[in-house]
């Protein structure tokens, strides 16, 4: 219990929020809007899984928003030019992976700090996309929405696929050796190296995985509506990092898990609809989210001090 105190406390906070909504705004609990809300958050969840891994290895990646936009637009353009969906999906993942390779090479290969590298790639990618697209929407052909399965089946497919990714990665982190390596590199890279793990390779692969997951998430996002807006990834990096940090993944690396990230994501994602249902003015949203993040971070800090003393 003590081991997972952080994750449990986030889950408790989420339950409290949901409970408050049940009392003050029971209209929140209608099945169809809830399913829509959940489906909208699934791409973010997939990206958050990747981000959790990156942060556990003591790195950070703030270019995910721009990567997401690029993958969305590319996938949209491919679909619009006639590619079948079975080909577009791996293409999107591949494009994301390539961007991940670039980040990974600079961070793991050259040892540059990930914050600055990904800051640079974020801006470069975003401006290049603007140059090319000038903000124009991409119109998708008819069979693309919901993978052609219709809304209900499509939504559950997306939710199912995202949860599958979460489960696979979560269990893999726990039980597979390579999952343990990720924690090892995050805790103490030098010790890991001496123990036979290759920290630079692990770091590199984590960034590549991040890119691939972003491509997958982009795909999950574009099938939810008949148009793609190039700006669609704006703000994603902050959303995802906030979710992961609130969910108990320590920014100093080496600790945290994906279930916590999931709980953190849900908690933060519920703030906006909660404000709408509780009839609180919209301009409080950013401040509330920032406060939740700082609270989580401070709680982490206090706990770390207690552990040290």
């Amino acid at each position, binding site marked *: 219990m003590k081991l997972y105190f952080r994750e449990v406390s986030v889950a408790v906070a989420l339950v409290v929020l949901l409970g408050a909504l049940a009392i003050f705004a029971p209209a929140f609990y209608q099945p169809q809007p809830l399913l829509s809300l959940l489906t909208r958050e699934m791409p973010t969840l997939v990206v958050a899984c990747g981000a959790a891994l990156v942060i556990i290895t003591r790195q950070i990646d703030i270019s995910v928003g721009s990567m997401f936009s690029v993958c969305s637009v590319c996938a949209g353009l491919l679909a619009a030019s006639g590619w079948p969906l079975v080909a577009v999906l791996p293409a999107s993942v591949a494009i994301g992976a390539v961007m991940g390779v670039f980040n990974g090479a600079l961070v793991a290969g050259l040892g540059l700090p990930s914050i600055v590298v990904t800051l640079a790639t974020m801006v470069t990618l975003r401006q290049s996309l603007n140059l090319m697209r000038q903000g124009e929407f991409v119109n998708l052909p008819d069979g693309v929405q919901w993978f052609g399965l219709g809304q209900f089946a499509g939504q559950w497919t997306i939710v199912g696929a995202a949860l599958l990714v979460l489960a696979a990665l979560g269990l893999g982190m726990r039980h597979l050796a390579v999952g343990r390596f990720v924690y090892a590199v995050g805790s103490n890279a030098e010790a890991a190296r001496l123990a036979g793990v290759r920290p630079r390779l692990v770091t590199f692969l984590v960034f590549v995985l991040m890119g691939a997951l972003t491509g997958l998430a982009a795909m999950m996002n574009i099938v939810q509506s008949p*148009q793609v*807006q190039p700006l669609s990834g704006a703000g994603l990096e902050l959303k995802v990092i906030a979710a992961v940090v609130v969910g108990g993944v320590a920014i100093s690396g080496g600790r945290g898990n994906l279930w916590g990230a999931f709980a953190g994501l849900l908690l933060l994602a519920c703030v906006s609809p909660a404000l*709408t249902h509780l009839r609180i003015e*919209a301009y409080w949203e950013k401040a509330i989210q920032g406060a939740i993040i700082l609270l989580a971070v401070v709680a982490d800090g206090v706990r770390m001090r207690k552990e040290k003393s």
Partner: protein
Amino acid sequence: MKSKFSRILFLACVLPGLAATLLAADAKLMIAMMPKAKGNAYFLSCKAGADKAARELGVELLFDGPTDTNAAKQNEIVENWITLGVDVIAVAAENKEGISTALRKAQKQGVAVITYDADSLPDARSFFVNQATPEGIGFALMDEAARLCGEEGEFAIITATLTAANQREWQRHIEARLAEKYPRMKLVAVRPCDDLKDRAQSEATALMSANPNLKLLMAICSPGVPGAAEAVKQAGKTGKVKVIGLGLPNENKRYVHEGVTDAVILWNTEDLGYLTVYAGVALANGELKPGATRIEAGSLGSFEIQGDNILLGKPFLFTKENIDRFDF
């Protein structure tokens, strides 16, 4: 010293030659047009009209602006144009006061300055091409909403960001019209979508869920209209919750035909761009002078001028019947 002098001499000979070669191709008039945000589809359609006018008039059109709305960057770009020596500058101002300093500078250098879509301070430009007054837009939206709701019921507004000046003004007039003429209607919420279609979709879903009696969603930013429409469609409430907004025909054709979106209100943004170029060129040529009451603009005919406002006309309603005629 000698080498320095000869270097200067060399530069003095070469540079004008360079400049002449670079610019000799155009004894053409150069008109520079700036949107609030370059990527915004609304302004891109203005550009389409502007391109057409530029071709007809035989002038060169430069179209540049910040990628996201940014008053500081607008100033920088105006400075660049002064440097380049354009003949006309037409700006959609993000910040009234901020842009005016740069525009006054341009005027001092003899550049013809007009504004369109969003005005600067009046002394910094000669004319303002006004697509429709914010009052006209707000009233048109509110009236159409009222008509669709039978003048009673709840509705909600989805706006771009809470800081956007245009949206704030339109909202003010909507609320004024609501208070004045439709006492049985109620505005239950205003939510921002950050100009993101996906976010507008989420907000619309939450709004419909929180307000079961909601009758209408009004999206006053162009990405918000298809976003809200998609949300209504996915919630299975087509027909029960109406959708109207300020948007572009192309993004909304599909929803209008499916009956999800009832009306899209805009002015013809292509015409706006077209008229702006004509006005700018007329100003630079001396054909358009202060105190004029009408202006001719090519194939669009003649337009009224009120004071220093060139009026495009009333907002235009795109509906199922006419939306296919437009391609922007």
